[in-house]
């Protein structure tokens, strides 16, 4: 590659990665939160025990968690086409990224909500609170730092997945590393890309930790 092209190529890759990760992270949070809440609420001893629903939901989440991302991505190509009209490009990559991350985040949400003390939930019940009130005003607010920490982990995982999404033309930094670094033996680009990815992950983790700490009142 011409050295003068490098900055613009890197910038484009970074923007594509950012697009894929930010959008899929937003969708993951939006979908993962309610699923995580349902996993906790419908559990035995939960606010509304529904063993059948819990078992089904748990099974679906586990299937999603056990598929390697690259397999999931290929397997759902028809679904991706249905949703976005295409299977190639950054927008198309958001679909498998989201589907891959939702079960992951849902489990983290479940763990975060389970960390809220039983006594606090019972106190709210003793006050005559409705279930929805308990979820919205007790469980979720009390778990906010853990929910943020979980989202941070998920975003980092998404950055990793997004590199694989490059394989279906999603673009991004991972794609750049594969195309220039691996296929064209351009070690320089490879190294720069890797360094950039490391910096981004560090930045995300640092920000996530800072926000979680800010929101924690322990």
């Amino acid at each position, binding site marked *: 590659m011409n050295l003068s092209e490098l900055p613009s190529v890197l910038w484009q890759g970074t923007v594509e990665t950012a697009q894929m990760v930010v959008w899929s992270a937003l969708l993951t949070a939006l979908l993962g939160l309610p699923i995580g809440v349902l996993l906790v609420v419908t559990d035995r001893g939960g606010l509304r025990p529904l063993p059948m629903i819990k078992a089904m939901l748990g099974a679906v989440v586990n299937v999603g968690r056990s598929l390697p991302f690259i397999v999931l991505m290929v397997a759902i190509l028809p679904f991706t086409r249905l949703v976005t009209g295409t299977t190639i490009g950054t927008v198309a990559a958001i679909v498998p990224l989201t589907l891959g991350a939702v079960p992951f985040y849902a489990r983290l949400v479940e763990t975060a909500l389970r960390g809220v003390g039983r*006594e606090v939930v*019972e106190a*709210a019940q003793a006050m005559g609170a409705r279930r929805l009130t308990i979820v919205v005003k007790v469980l979720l607010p009390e778990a906010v730092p853990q929910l943020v920490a979980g989202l941070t982990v998920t975003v980092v995982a998404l950055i990793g997945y997004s590199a694989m999404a490059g394989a279906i033309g999603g673009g991004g930094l991972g794609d750049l590393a594969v195309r220039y670094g691996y296929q064209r033996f351009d070690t320089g680009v490879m190294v720069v890309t890797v360094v950039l990815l490391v910096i981004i992950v560090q930045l995300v983790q640092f920000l996530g930790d800072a926000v979680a700490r800010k929101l924690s009142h322990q």
Partner: protein
Amino acid sequence: MYNLPVIRVNALRKVYGSRVLALDGVDLHVREGEIFGVLGQSGAGKSTLLRCVNLLERPTSGTVQVGGRDLTALPEGELRRQRQRIGMIHQHFALLSSRTVADNIAFPLEIAGMSRAQRRARVAELLDLVGLADKAGARPAQLSGGQKQRVGIARALAARPKVLLSDEATSALDPATTQSILALLRRLNAELGLTILLITHEMQVIKSVCDSAATLREGRVVEAGGVYDLIATPGSLLTRELFPLPDPPPAGSLTLTLPIGRADEPIVSSLVRTYGVDVDIIGGTVEDLRGRSAGRLRVRIGGERAAEALESLRGRGVLVEAA
């Protein structure tokens, strides 16, 4: 002085799974305006009993009436409304760490659908009531244990309940803080006419605040009544717990339970002087029960006029039992 029972628990049974019997036919009557203590070791079922009163735990059979309404028969929506009228405080305070002190206290008012302005006014009153007006904006993590329980109490009283349930509310506190929380409960009982049902394993709690007490063992009430009445009852378990004496008692020794409010009278010395008997004091405990002294002595009385001496003790209201 007292009216009808405000809490009436009848034939309450709670079985966990198919075999663990937590409550085995408990009857309990808590009268309006009294502080009623349920005493028991851990595992005796007292926590289950308390949680059955506001139906956090649904009894296997039996009924729970609070303020004349059978809670076990209410549909869910109505039960929630009744719960808003029953305050509860918890061993580990159960405050929301994400909320300020003021917002914690406001929580039951939000549930009751009170407007923001009304909530603010009520919270200010409650903060004054428990002496935490300067902590309104603090988070629970910034408070001491005693302060946290004061917030818990303010929150429990926010919706002006007539009944307060206390689940080992002082068990996580040091002795001095325990006393200040107990004094607060006593004050609220007197000032607001609040009926309090508490469970505890600490004798100190029974001594300092309880008008009535029940002892729970293996899911059954083995003894219940007014604290002063129980002390005057021969063979009372509560008396034995309140005034521990050295065990085993030596042969021929007697246990004297002194009449309430007169434990500081010179009973023994007057006995010696009047009847010329020998009195060996083997052990004794005198306690202050809500401002009235009470106590128990283990003695051996010898001498020719010992029988007469015992008769005179009985005449003075002393309960004489073979140890």
